[in-house]
């Protein structure tokens, strides 16, 4: 038993060298494998969530993300929806756009963004829309988060 333990110990110690080499030489492969096998994504609180709609305006497009109420378990009472406009080169000086995020055919809010200053205004048509959050000047355009209340 002692000899077997010792043998296994040495095997593991030698395997540590192989693991070290594999960690670096196979990093790309293992990283892709890990990402694919776990299927994890960036939490929507950071990424903005999945895209539910894209509106093409010719020179630029509006990207509407899903409303984010994600919590560790269940959902939070308040969340946000992220709207992106891109590419930066095609954006007009002022964007004013009605957004229907719940798919009832009516605009839930109208958001206006000054692409020179990042100043925003919000006109609410739905009681679940709370306020406009920050606007973000991205590499390829602008993003705005509008704060929402979860509806039953």
């Amino acid at each position: 038993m002692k000899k077997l333990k010792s043998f296994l110990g040495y095997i593991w110690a030698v395997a540590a060298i192989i693991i070290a080499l594999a960690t670096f030489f196979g990093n790309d492969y293992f990283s892709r494998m890990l990402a694919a096998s776990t299927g994890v994504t960036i939490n929507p609180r950071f990424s903005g969530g999945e895209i539910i709609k894209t509106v093409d305006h010719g020179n630029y497009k509006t990207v509407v993300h899903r409303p984010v109420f994600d919590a560790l378990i269940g959902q939070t009472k308040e969340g946000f929806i992220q709207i992106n406009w891109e590419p930066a080169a095609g954006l007009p000086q002022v964007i004013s756009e009605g957004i229907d995020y719940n798919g009832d055919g009516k605009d839930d809010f109208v958001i206006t963004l000054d692409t020179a200053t990042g100043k925003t205004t919000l006109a609410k048509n739905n009681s679940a829309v709370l306020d406009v959050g920050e606007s973000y000047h991205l590499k390829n355009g602008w993003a705005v988060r509008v704060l929402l209340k979860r509806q039953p």
Partner: protein
Amino acid sequence: MAGIIPASQQPGILKTLLLCLPMIFITQMMLSAGKPLPTEPAGIVSFAVTFIFVNSIFFLMIRTGKTDRWRSILFVTYSVCFVLSFITNLFEVRGSMAISQANMIEGLTPFCHMVIPVTLIPAALTRTIIFPGTIIGTWASIATMFVLWIGSSLALGRGFCSWFCFFGGMDEGFSRLFKKARIKKVNPRWTYLPYAVLLLIVLASAVTLAPFYCEWLCPFKTVTEFAEITSLKIFIQTIIFVSLFIALVMVLPALTRRRTQCSLFCPFGAFQSLTNKINVFEIRVEPDKCIQCKKCIATCPSFSINEETIAKGKTAMTCMKCGKCVDACKQQAIFYHIKGAPLAHGKPEIYRRLFIYPAFLFLATMSGGYVQDAILKIIKLIATGSIF
């Protein structure tokens, strides 16, 4: 000379070179990252200096039988070069060390190993990572760092903290500033603090779905990147992390000659103490050989060895396997060991070599890129007056 190999038994130059050959070959591949060797003069110089420096360290480790004495030189250099390389890269790409909310939404925050423990519960329950980075495909992506962490944990356990961590060299550097400790006694109860911090950040991050440690506590934001100050909350966070850096990474290590951030605060270190259970390498003590000189207790940077652990023949679970106690023990009563291998009449030098091969591979590969980049930037600064 103290150390594990008596001078008469040290390997000769030829045997040392033979033992170093695999490392020379591997570091050449790792440092060039599989690409052809640089052709421009600055690239050649930075590659050659790094290659010679790294392999000289390994040569000396094998030849002298000392581990920490040489490891420490590379480890501290690694940290300094990491900071230099990281900050200059940020200025090159972003123009500042501050990260904006827009950068975070775009997933442009490099992921570091410190975040790993807090991501696990949310990842298990929501299948998402609570960090504003990218899963794959960019420099310092989340999947890349997870693979590095899994590999290094399997190979080194908590040895990660002395052979891999790009932050660890900072407090190690400061802990070596003075020859004598100004504060000699630290209550051993403080060594439980990292576990409390770990528990706090794991729970707080799970509840808030945000990396609590990064936002509120990480001292190393002082020398890497930090959130742009746009609110009172971020201002308070900034004061906290700068204060923690000054206290835990600079002042206390210098006064105690210990790695205080790593052993009294770092939650990732506490986490690695737990993953260490699946690792085969350990530091053992032969109590019969021990003459109670207590040099090991005085030199251990992580408070991992005391009379109690010596009597048990091992070090505490917080041991970072740096080898400082092994180097310090003139009786050769402390040695690297492979679990399962014989203790009495064992082969401590073989155990040590089997440990330092994978450990040094991690250290050399992780440090190599940053050391090369830092040298390159210094050459550019001297030659052109600009690092960009």
